[in-house]
């Protein structure tokens, strides 16, 4: 208790002295990264039976920690609910927020945050029972829809049905759990939320094959990590770790084969893995092999995806638009040079 009090005093004194270092220096001084993740979003962040943090966002932060410290475990995960996530970031409780957060204009500008890119292109989808015989959202005219009130999904739904000249009857629910229960009880023909959540839910229904997630996605929900305004170097580090994971997949660099690229003719791979002569990572204050460590931590983007959201995870989300641009998706990293 007393220690805490003295800690507060010390911090006050420090702040009064005006010694503000960059976030990277703070993180290095502290010896670990503070990463804000969801308290529970299937596939993105949770703890497993043994209490270990796992998830898509978790793996990104591990890669970032590996890039800085060479150690993917040098990161503390702070579970944040959607109600407190932005203030926690703004107040400096976390260094980076990787909390399946949609990149929007006002969050980027008004909330004074910098989005580092998109690590998952989500969007709003619909689930229906197969016996309904519906194959596309355009056939949903007159349907009853279970919808979480007070969310952007509610507004998207209204817009979409209006644009397509269809009508629907909303069955309002408080959260995804209630939507699911109402849908299963037959209170609504279809229920709608982010497609990633629909897939996760469907797999664990009593008979998954009786249910269908419709192929149409009616809204854009680009999820990505973000940092506070005001430290561009820190934002660059976070952005380029994400890009490195994407490039690694594009080039075929995996966790398993990462050590076998020493003799490649591809100069970009040498720059990325730090096996060449020029040390371009010094520009942001990272060690030469930072990206090597980042990729080594949990594999490239594709591996992280498969382990947390794809077939290996049991959620079975298709890559779809989240595939690399070379494979028909829209993941595209600027060149690493």
């Amino acid at each position, binding site marked *: 208790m007393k220690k805490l009090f003295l800690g507060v005093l010390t*911090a006050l004194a420090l702040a009064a002295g005006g010694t503000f270092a960059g976030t990277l220096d703070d993180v290095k001084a502290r010896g670990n990264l503070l990463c804000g993740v969801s308290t529970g*979003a299937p*596939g993105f962040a949770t703890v497993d039976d043994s209490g270990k943090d796992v998830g898509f966002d978790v793996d990104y932060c591990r890669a970032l920690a590996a890039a800085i410290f060479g150690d993917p475990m040098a990161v503390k995960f702070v*579970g*944040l609910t959607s*109600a407190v996530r932005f203030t*926690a970031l703004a107040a400096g409780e976390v260094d980076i927020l990787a909390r399946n957060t949609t990149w929007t204009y006002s969050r980027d500008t008004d909330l004074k945050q910098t989005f580092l890119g998109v690590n998952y292109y989500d969007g709003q989808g619909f689930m229906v029972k197969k016996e309904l015989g519906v194959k596309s959202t355009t056939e949903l005219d007159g349907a009853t829809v279970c919808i979480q009130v007070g969310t952007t999904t509610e507004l998207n739904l209204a817009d979409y049905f209006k644009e397509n000249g269809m009508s629907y009857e909303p069955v309002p629910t408080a959260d995804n759990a209630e939507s699911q229960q109402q849908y299963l009880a037959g209170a609504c023909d279809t229920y709608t939320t982010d497609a990633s959540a629909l897939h996760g839910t469907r797999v*664990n229904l009593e008979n998954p094959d009786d249910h269908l997630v419709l192929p149409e996605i009616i809204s854009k929900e680009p999820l990505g990590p973000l940092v506070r305004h005001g430290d561009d170097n820190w934002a660059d580090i976070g952005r380029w770790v994400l890009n490195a994971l994407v490039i690694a997949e594009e080039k075929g660099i995996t966790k398993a084969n990462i050590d076998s690229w020493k003799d490649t003719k591809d100069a970009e791979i040498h720059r990325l893995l730090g096996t060449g002569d020029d040390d371009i990572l010094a520009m942001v204050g990272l060690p030469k092999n930072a990206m090597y460590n980042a990729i080594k931590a949990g594999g490239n983007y594709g591996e992280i995806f498969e382990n947390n959201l794809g077939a290996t995870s049991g959620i079975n989300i298709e890559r779809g638009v989240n595939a690399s641009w070379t494979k028909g998706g829209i993941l595209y990293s600027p060149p690493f040079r």
Partner: protein
Amino acid sequence: MMTKIAFVRKKEIPPSAPPITEVGLIGWLRQNLFSSWLNSILTVLSVYFIVIILWDFIPWAYGGHWNTKSLRECLDLDPDVACFSVLTARWKQLLFGLYPAEEYWRPTLTFIFLLLAIVPILFPKFFRFFWFSIIYPGLAVWLLWGGSFWSISIVYIGLTLGALFFLTLIRRYLKNYMIAAIFAFLFTAVFFLFISNPLVGLLNVILPISLPFVESLKMGGFTLSLIVGVTGIVASFPIGILLALGRQSNLPVIKMICVGFIEFIRGVPLITLLFVASVLLNYFLPPGTNFDIVLRVVIMVTLFSAAYMAEVIRGGLAGLPLGQHEASASLGLTYWQSQRLIIMPQALKISIPGIVNTFIGLFKDTTLVSIISLRDPVGLASTIRADQKWNGIYWELYVAIGLMFFIFCWGMSQYSQYLERKLKTDK
């Protein structure tokens, strides 16, 4: 003519058995369940609803799976019964949160000590062990958070020295309590500012006793509920008493402060205060300040509960006849003596149901901390569901959490009834 009396009973008739409709099971049923038409209808309806609920619940719970690896496996075996396997896999997390597994003995020991520490408070015949209840808070903090043993005990050492200093002053040198208290306060302040840190350092070198540090991020489950609930309950009670007395004070400043505090806190929902603790305080404090989140929450919950406690106790005070105050004053008792000996024992006795009511409410309100990201049992339920293995489990988790809360709240309620019976003087 002689009056002819045909029969005179010489002996009293033995009392006949009461009608079968008045005693035994039938009598009980008639009196309690079927005493009127309305009651009969209500009884039948209640039985009907209880039966239809149990009709579904018992086979669901009784046949439940306990040993599957995931919800999917449960559903494939038999989708119509409970999947308690989630509890098998996660019961440790529900109890201890993310506390390191090899340190589980620490919260367990803290809980056992908690039971021992409240016995002297709850049952007067064990009052001679009250010293343990005083040591307990420091012990609990050390066990739960770890770190050096001395940095916690130094608080006790400092306060004890301060108290001894005060007593010595009073006995030997000074008559005035106020001046002695000021000196003792200064002495204690000097101790904590200048002496305690080197002393802790020295003690750490001489006799290093320490436990691995566990940060508040790892606290969760029922351990967290109990930390917040018990601390809130214990701390809010004395604060509540002081606020209640302050509200009745003749000194305008004290009265205004107390009324202002109580009305402000009661005018704001608890969740708002929790948001202040979790979000707003960080803006006021300089960046990088590590003001422990659990401590922040405990403070807010305590303040919230103290305001309600003050009003409950004020109700008890208002229930006492004015004669009690006057009588104690006429005996020559000082304000604090009369409060301690005459007023408070009676006022608190009247307030027992209200006090325990506030305690129970506070304990259940601790689940609100899940909204500000702390992993109490309810928060953990959603974390557990985010694991694809258990995605879609609702009832099993909530039934288990509800049962745990019920046990604690029911225990508190039973104790309050015991206390009321024990203190009943107006038979």
